[in-house]
């Protein structure tokens, strides 16, 4: 039953994706800058004939509606077009870059949960204590700190000063890792390559902390306030009255209920993480999707921008679906 419901939800994403595709298609064509001019280098050095040829090759000489039709009909067949700048199919480029971005996003999510869960719980049970005040001040700092700044500070401290962690890249050039999924940590585990595991984890640490810090701060604050609310509810009093240990009260009765709004926030933050990637990937020279998109935007590489935004949108929609599914486990009364 649940499987059918999930399938239904997956099908509902189709019109959402179609809407995203159409909006993206028109929005990027509103930005100034002609891709053909850009493709041929600094304008002027090529003949008008060559420009027409290129326009024709990429269908840029056709009416917008016809271009949209090409984009959508090719897209349905899994062909997102051909990148103007990189001279490669967009799908190939996305597939090459996506694992790096996924790895960093997962790393950041884990870091944020590892930081946020204990902080949120402790500051709720010890409300207004020194711990609470300190952690909430920390959370405030985490929210306000721009990612690139935190990244640079972390680099200066951990890479330059202490020389514990590398400042950039995904893996050292002298480590050989057989690629399976493209997620280096996972691949190291799958192939039993300890050196690569250690090296890729070290490379992943600073970017994950940088990206995860902001999310950790938000999650900690949300968890704290929902915990406080739940702690005041009657069933907690009941649980205490029937003599349940404080640990059981907090972890089983309180946390599980407080997690529902928290999970929603975490789900929404995945979108923020994907966006934040663009900056963090640049600071840490992380060869992921974010940097590819920034380059694509600067070069008005329409097919590549379209393809990347579709990936972002799809990930976001899927994450929200996952959140909804997770609800049903946290609170069986909720159905899809």
């Amino acid at each position: 039953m649940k499987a059918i419901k999930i399938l239904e939800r997956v099908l509902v994403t189709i019109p959402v994706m179609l809407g995203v595709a159409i909006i993206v298609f028109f929005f990027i064509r509103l930005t100034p800058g002609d891709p053909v001019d850009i493709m041929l280098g600094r304008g002027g050095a090529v003949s008008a004939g060559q420009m027409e040829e290129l326009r024709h090759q990429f269908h840029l000489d056709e009416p917008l509606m016809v271009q949209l039709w090409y984009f959508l009909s090719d897209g349905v067949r899994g062909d997102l077009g051909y990148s103007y700048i990189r001279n490669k199919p967009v799908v190939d480029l996305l597939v090459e870059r996506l694992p790096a971005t996924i790895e960093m996003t997962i790393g950041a999510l884990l870091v944020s949960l590892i930081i946020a869960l204990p902080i949120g719980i402790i500051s709720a049970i010890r409300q207004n204590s020194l711990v609470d005040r300190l952690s909430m001040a920390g959370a405030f700092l985490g929210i306000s700190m721009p990612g690139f700044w935190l990244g640079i500070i972390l680099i200066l401290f951990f890479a330059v000063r202490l020389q514990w962690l590398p400042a950039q890249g995904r893996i050292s050039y002298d480590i050989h890792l057989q690629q399976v999924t493209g997620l280096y940590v996972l691949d190291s585990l799958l192939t039993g390559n300890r050196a690569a595991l250690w090296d890729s984890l070290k490379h992943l640490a600073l970017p994950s902390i940088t990206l995860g810090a902001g999310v950790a701060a938000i999650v900690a604050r949300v968890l704290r306030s929902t915990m406080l609310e739940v702690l005041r509810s009657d069933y907690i009093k009941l649980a205490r009255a029937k003599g349940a240990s404080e640990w059981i009260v907090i972890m089983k009765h309180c946390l599980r209920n407080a997690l529902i709004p928290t999970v929603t926030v975490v789900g929404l933050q995945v979108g923020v993480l994907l966006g934040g990637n663009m900056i963090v990937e640049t600071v840490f020279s992380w060869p992921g999707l974010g940097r590819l998109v920034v380059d694509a935007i600067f070069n008005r590489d329409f097919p590549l921008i379209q393809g990347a935004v579709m990936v972002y949108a799809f990930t976001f929609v899927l994450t929200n679906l996952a959140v909804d599914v997770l609800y049903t486990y946290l609170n069986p009364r909720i159905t899809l």
Partner: protein
Amino acid sequence: MNRIRTWTVARTLRQGAIASTFAGLMLAGCAGPPASTPTAAPGSGPAAAAPAPTSAPQVNAGTSTPARNTLTVAIARAPASLDPADHRSRESETVIRNMYDGLFTRDTKGGVHMEIAESAKWLDPKTLEVKIRPGVKFQDGSPLTADDVVFTFERTIKENAIEYPKPHTSPRKGLVEPLVSIEKKDSLTVVMNFRGPWPSGFQQLVQHQIVSKAYVEKNGTKGLVDKPMGAGPFKFVSATTGLEEVVMERFDGYYGGAPDLPPVGPAQLQRAVFRVIPETSSRVAALLSGEMDIITEVPADLVDTLKKNPGIQVKTVPGTRPLWMDMNVKQAPFDDARVRQALNYAIDKDLIVKKVYNGMARPLGGPLSPLNNFADPNLKPYQYDKSKALALLKDAGWTPGAGGMLAKDGKPFTFVIDTIDSTRSLAEALSAMLRDLGVDASVRIWESNVVVPKLLAGERQAYVGDWGDAAFDPVGHMEAKWSTYKQGSTYGRASYSGYSNSRVDKLILDGEVEGDVAKRHAIYNEAQKLIYDEAPAVFLVLPEAIEAASARVQNWEPAADSRENLHDVSVK
């Protein structure tokens, strides 16, 4: 000048946050490495034109441990391609040049030397005979012959000769435009036929590297891109997605390179790694943490801090990217030469050198970089002279009005300076200086790809930007920057001012084909003087390129054409 001071202070404060964090942490954290030699930058200054690297070959790599014998270089942008014929990017050339050699090469100061070519002589002004050095081997062990040279140039000049990913013409065709055909004379001799005399030929031929005919025919362009194979000092090992990292190792069968440029012989290093680090502060951090041995594009304001670190050496080299503020000569107020001259007098180039470039730049004397082989040494930079500027503007009808701001017929002198992010500080400095004169100039930042078509269409007012002359020759520069814009040709493709002077156009055409050096000088001197006097641009500065390396890197010199010649470099 108090406005300038305000601007300087504001700028300092803005950059101060990051710079001072850097300074503090670097000094605190990086005193670690043993203080070997406090390395300033001996011999790298513009005046110290010491001969190119001369020190004798050092430790043979065979005796060093592999880890110590690997060198890592951080570059700011990824190469566009590793196919020597399929790019127009400096980063590509920087990387490719270590795996491929050309007929000719350049030293770090821009002088041309024979590399794969053993001799070259003009049979007549339109025909060049090149003899190839015997015994040159490709990295797959096959000998390099005339067939490979013919194939390389034909692949560059023939329409649609590159078949992957879709058939297209080499973007480097324009760099060897006058070449009509090339033929093999014997197994080690080729003859190149040009459309007309090509005085800058040797400088331009440096930009082409020889590929193996057999290898490309067998593996196709895709094979060449996936696994480059040339006759250079390093063999390709691996590259990551998007060429974010390229690893290469020493080619033991290397013929030695240009005999004029010692050390001659196989490379000193066992392995070389190029990695892309786009963010400036991350690049600097990677050098400080010891992950990178050489970094390019160091910002001028970090130089002093880096120099204080004994484990780091900072070197500069006069750049090849002079900067101007082009003024749209087809629109008021810049359609009046007096106004354009006035702005030249109103800008204090020395102050810009000092404040914006931390002393690491030099003022431009005119339309060409002072390092160009044909720059007229008699042209001196417009000297800063505010009263002269005001007098010229007064002649043109601009007089001080309310608040000292200039106005003509009741309309204030106001315009927008367009620029891109990398020259923002310079444009802001100009804006402050012009305000001091009574001109209201605001700055607008664009993406280069977006603004250039608008400039060529004459839709903008003023633009601060550069145009390189890595070949140190007026060709590639004069016709692009100062000749009349002709759509669909290379002429005027960077003429953002819309400047057009039929005499200058003619001189530029004459200069391209004049074989006599003295006559060529005379031609270009006349053209430069005309442009200087008509001032379609404010001639600004030529910034130096700044690079830094760990102190363990030996015999390393940044090159004027931003190439990293790792053949000569060793590590201790």
